[in-house]
């Protein structure tokens, strides 16, 4: 069962979510502030971070950025503000998904599992594929560009793996939401857009004219043609 670090300032939410997840078999460590959460991280070594956006002192976006600077730890934002602005800010900071409060533990757990799920690769596919300057290791789950390893967040890596598995095939945002994020419901399509933007920032030579992840206006995204 995954180890979850929960950073949440409201005691009842913290206790409730901690209780709910623990009942479902997760190992949960809860922290009341961003600073305490960052301090607990080295010692607890979580598999996933559940992060509240509105925190006293250091806020969720700052915590998210700091974690992303040195780690590819999956991050899910827990936000009371489902408003578009907050969601986009959080996603741009590098979060992999977001959950709007209040949410039942089964929803939270489903999202956790979706983020942690490794992409099922069809057997027989070569482990290492080279696309232009990009080298994708589908078994080791690493990506390097011109020999330099890239630090991709889990959602970015899964998006790249999914797109590059079928080069030149167009995927709609809805399809990507289902396959990469595991959202069966109609979710926010900007989850995809924000992730594509972050991925492009890491793999493209010029973000303005993307070469690897291309947009088909009105339809969605595709990998290549290079």
């Amino acid at each position, binding site marked *: 069962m995954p180890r979850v670090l929960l950073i949440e300032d409201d005691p009842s939410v913290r206790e409730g979510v901690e209780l709910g997840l623990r009942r479902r078999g997760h190992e949960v460590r809860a922290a009341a502030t961003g600073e305490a959460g960052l301090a607990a991280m080295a010692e607890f070594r979580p598999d996933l971070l559940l992060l509240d956006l509105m925190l006293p002192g250091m806020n969720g976006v700052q915590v998210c950025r700091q974690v992303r600077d040195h780690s590819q730890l999956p991050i899910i934002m827990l936000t009371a503000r489902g408003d578009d602005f907050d969601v986009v800010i959080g996603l741009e900071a590098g979060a992999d998904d977001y959950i709007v409060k209040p949410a039942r533990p089964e929803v*939270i757990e489903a999202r956790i599992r979706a983020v942690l799920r490794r992409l099922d690769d069809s057997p027989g596919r070569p482990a290492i594929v080279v696309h232009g300057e990009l080298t994708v290791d589908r078994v080791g789950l690493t990506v390097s560009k011109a020999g330099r390893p890239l630090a991709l967040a889990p959602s970015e890596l899964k998006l790249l793996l999914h797109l590059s598995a079928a080069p030149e095939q167009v995927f709609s945002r809805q399809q990507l939401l289902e396959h990469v994020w595991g959202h069966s419901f109609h979710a926010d399509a900007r989850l995809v857009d924000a992730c594509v933007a972050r991925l492009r920032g890491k793999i493209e030579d010029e973000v303005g004219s993307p070469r690897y992840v291309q947009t088909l206006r009105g339809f969605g995204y595709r990998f290549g043609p290079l």
Partner: protein
Amino acid sequence: MRRPAARQDRGRGRQPPLCPDTAGFRLPLRAPVSSGRGGDRARVRAFGLRTRLLLAFLLVAAVSAGTTAALTYREARNSLLETAQDTAVTSFRDHVQQTGFGLPVQKEGLEDVLRDIARKGKPHPWVVFAEYGSIRASSGENPVSTVITPELRRAARANPHGSFERVVKDGVPYLTIAMPTVFKTGPDSLLPSGLVLYAVMRMTDEQVNVDALLMAGRDGALPGLAVSLIPGLIAARSVLRPVRKLREAAHNMGNGRLDTRIPVRGSDELADLARTFNESAGQLERSVRELREAEERARRFASDVSHELRTPLAGMLAVTEVLDEDADGLDADTARAVRLVSAETGKLAVLVEDLMEISRFDARAAELNADEVDVAEAIRKTLGNRHWTDDRIRTELPDGIRARLDPRRFDVVIANLVGNALRHGGAPVTVRLRAEERSPGPPVLVTDVVDNGPGIRPEALPHIFDRFYKADAARTRSAGSGLGLAITLENVKLHGGTIHAGNRPGGGAVFAVEIPLHVEGTGG
């Protein structure tokens, strides 16, 4: 005798006009009638305030100039004519009295006498005629004058002091004087002798002078009229400019620019009007601002309350599963209480979520994240995700209809309508999709959700999309939050579409959603 008793002025076209001809300025009482607003507009344009002001100015100027000219003309003309005719009458009377007439009158000698009097005509030469019984004599060629009227002849017999009359014949004005010769029988009594002398004098010179007077009066009045146009224009301008400003300001106010004000100049009635307008505009602006602030406060309150409810709800909702799972192990009453709390917490969470959504719509913070989707596929997914795949739901979903929609919002629309039909209507519920051409306008995507229930009561129909409206009064607490259809309506409106609720003839409610189809080309 200064004034002859009988005095007739029979000159045709010589009466001084009392009022100048104003036919050219007469305002029609009724403008040409045409139907509709266009006609009213045309009338306002044709006789606008400017025109009316100018016409009033011209009328006043014309009346005053005309009256002045007419009075001056009449007085001058009368004095001119009276001087001439008084001179002539006095002179004629003197000559007649100085001339001795032997009776009985003989025609031969008489003509000489008449010629003698004719030579002394004053101020113009005159022709003298004499009538005595059947004897007719004259100083000229014709023995009888054609100018002397029967009235003058009658007057001559009635008045021994003599009469005169002005006559126009063939365009030439004449002064005709009748002077009976009398015997003086006493200091106060006179006896007519039967001999009547007539003098006929052409008044051409006087006519020329009178004509000159008329010309002078007219020439004086017309430039006056022309000059009066200038103050008329200035006055019209000074009135019309504030009026036009007022109109523009009122128009701006109507368009929502409530900070519109008019510059107040001077202290006349128009300035008062402008001041009143400004005050009213100020009060209106204040009222509207207060209303908006109150509305804004109410909206923010709803939004804040919803936000604040989320945090405790998040904690409660996180443990409801624990309660549900452990309820089985508790005694019956406690288990019921625990399950109740759990269920109500779930409903409260839905209500708060819906309230949040509504306050986002109210604050216009709801955005449309449109994407091109296969509509039939989207609806099938909505039904499938909610496990509405049994025989309670029938679908008529033709493939291949693509539309630009916000998939998440369209999902909410379909889910709310189908959920509503299953809850309040009756199974089976039919979801029907079609694209319809609309002339005029773009083609629309029509989605019908039809149930087989009793239908919507007619009195409930107008309120069916109101917030918290419960069509069934007995079911005040249904499973829904009471906001579902209101949210559906807002989502459809966000797509630029419309939604209608109605009843089928055979019973059952129909909800029809129409959204404009904006299918983009296949190019990237």
